[in-house]
């Protein structure tokens, strides 16, 4: 009687295993835990559920995704990567270099992704001719948000160069209005730094200094000017800025406590929540001097190298993410614009429509550039080394010349 019992048990176990393998599901690690973002992800979940694919949510809270990155490392090091993980551009590249990513080329070819995804994004999603990540959105960090009422009362027009910005800001300051709402956190300081480098140096200088980390460009007089402008900007920020979260800074603009903020288009979420209209109550203009250029910051779902029986679900996930319907639905909520250029702009607000028009122009002129502050300009090591210097300079009385020297040393030692 013993043998049949054993057989039975084996049979039971094997059915269990096979049924587990039958039920396809994707496990997605992400840091979209805020209400609107989570709702946007539901679009994706339902789409996949329609195809009989389950969704194992693996949210790791923490806005910048630092905690998520740590979790991901642990999972991959343990040989148990998720089906897909939300990553920024440079992280996709770093994971691809580790050989941890899978291959989505088949789905990509079928969906003609190469024709609709801007080439600057493809530089991150494609490695050695293989698609290993799918872009979800395109954020633009180089926006200047303006409280329209304050500007109207004081007869000001939105600045288009850094010189104009300084004049406008000085006028506001003289009237006792905080010109610029800012939060003193390294990534926010770097967001301003991005805008100043691009605004003063132009697209070619940004590419040379930031993306190529060219030592001559980093040590140039233009860079000294950039740091001098950073010092001027520091003078337009209130005394209590240190450590403030970005959304609190946005709230200052919304409440009329401050006139402007340099921040990415995720600020729209705060504007809409305060029942104001982006483009009317709160103006969106490109950061001073950066008209014609487009800094971008894209969230990718990177496909990890999973076992063969999970690859079908992974491909289905990638195809769903890339579908125009999801791209539109998600980005309407997120404040960003779709990562494919063939989505109609009609449903987007004024700022989104401007972004969609600008990105086409920038793509054509080769001025679509990865943002340093948001993980598309440099590897983590160099990025953080630049953050150190920018933040140190912004928070101290370091001279621009010293800052430039520090910058060169920091970048050089981080590259080693």
């Amino acid at each position: 009687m013993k043998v049949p019992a054993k057989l039975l048990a084996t049979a039971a176990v094997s059915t269990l295993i096979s049924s587990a393998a039958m039920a396809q599901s994707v496990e997605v690690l992400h840091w979209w835990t805020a209400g609107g973002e989570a709702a946007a992800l539901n679009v994706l979940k339902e789409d996949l559920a329609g195809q009989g694919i389950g969704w194992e949510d693996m949210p790791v809270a923490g806005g910048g995704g630092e905690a998520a990155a740590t979790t991901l490392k642990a999972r991959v090091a343990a040989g148990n990567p998720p089906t897909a993980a939300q990553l920024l551009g440079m992280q996709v590249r770093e994971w691809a270099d580790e050989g941890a990513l899978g291959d989505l080329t088949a789905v990509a070819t079928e969906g003609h992704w190469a024709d609709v995804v801007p080439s600057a994004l493809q530089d991150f999603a494609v490695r050695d001719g293989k698609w290993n990540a799918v872009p979800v959105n395109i954020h633009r960090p180089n926006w200047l948000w303006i409280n329209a009422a304050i500007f109207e009362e004081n007869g000001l027009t939105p600045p288009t160069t850094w010189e104009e910005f300084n004049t406008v800001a000085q006028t506001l300051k003289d009237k006792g209005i905080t010109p610029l709402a800012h939060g003193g956190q390294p990534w926010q300081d770097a967001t301003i730094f991005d805008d100043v480098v691009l605004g003063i140096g132009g697209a070619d200088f940004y590419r040379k200094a930031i993306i190529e980390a060219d030592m001559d460009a980093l040590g140039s007089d233009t860079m000294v000017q950039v740091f001098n402008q950073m010092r001027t900007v520091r003078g337009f920020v209130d005394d209590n800025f240190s450590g403030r979260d970005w959304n609190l800074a946005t709230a200052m603009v919304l409440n009329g406590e401050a006139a402007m903020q340099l921040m990415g288009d995720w600020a729209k979420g705060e504007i809409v929540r305060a029942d104001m209209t982006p483009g009317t109550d709160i103006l969106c203009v490109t950061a001073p001097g950066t008209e014609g250029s487009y800094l971008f910051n894209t969230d990718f779902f990177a496909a990890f190298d999973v076992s063969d029986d999970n690859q079908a679900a992974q491909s289905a996930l990638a195809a769903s993410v890339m579908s125009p319907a999801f791209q539109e639905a998600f980005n309407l909520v997120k404040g960003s614009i779709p990562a494919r250029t063939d989505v109609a702009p009609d449903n987007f607000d004024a700022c989104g429509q401007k972004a969609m028009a600008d990105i086409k122009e920038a793509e054509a002129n080769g001025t679509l550039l990865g943002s340093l502050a948001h993980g598309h300009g440099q590897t983590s090591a160099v990025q953080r080394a630049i953050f150190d210097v920018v933040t140190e300079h912004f928070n101290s009385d370091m001279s621009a010349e010293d800052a430039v020297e520090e910058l060169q040393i920091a970048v050089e030692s981080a590259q080693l």
Partner: protein
Amino acid sequence: MARSASSARAALRNLLPRLVLSPSVALIAIFVYGFIAFTSYLSFSDSRMLPSYGWVGLSNYEKLFSLRTWDIALNNLAVFGILYIAICCVLGLMLAILLDQRIRAEGFIRTIYLYPMALSFIVTGVAWKWFLDPGIGLEAVMHDWGWTSFKFDWIKNRDMAIYTVVIAAVWQTSGFVMATFLAGLRGIDAEMLRAAEVDGASTFALYRRIVIPQLRPAFLSAFVVLAHMAIKSYDLVVALTNGGPGTATEVPATFMYSYTFTRNQMGIGAASAEIMLLTIAAVIVPYLWSELREKR
């Protein structure tokens, strides 16, 4: 038969402690000492995002000590460590001596001083962050009450921010130090004190010559506990200032986390962890050595 049973029982009795202890010994061997060894190896390797095993010798240590941020972190550790330990000891001792005056409701007061210790450093950090924030905390309240010239913006001031970490940490731990000293004070032979009083010693002389010298063991344990808390302090700094303004309150532990996990320079991060380990060892090993020697 009976003899063999009793000898088996004796053998079991000998074996039992080892059996019971062995799982935890094995766990500690792997998860503490094993990972210390692993980290030591990583500090000599070319690890960046994930551990990798190419040997690079001392170059991670050379890079580490050429980094400005590491210099800042070490300086901050020195300032924080010295002030934290010194103020905690002095304050703890004073509180203990005052509590030792046979006052009413001693148990109640002692509990109040000890309570901060029950909080996590994260809670302490967030509470003090709000309290010290000039926009919403102490300074704002004073301004509301009409004292408009009042100014206390240390937490936003890069030269003073590290002292706010000291304040919060002292608030949290001085009660614990007080308890340690109070136990020491209660252990002092009352006969000896009475004898000194009979000889006409003033209260001050009594404490300086008789009581405080006898608190040496309490001092030592307080020092060792505080020193290692200072070196590994991470959560308090993260919650209170997050290393800011700028890099003004960076400490070795926050440095280690950022290099290992966010900057993908795991080799340098591991090297900084090793330096922290050695610093703690420099405090703990002599202490353990002297303790063990005394027992023998």
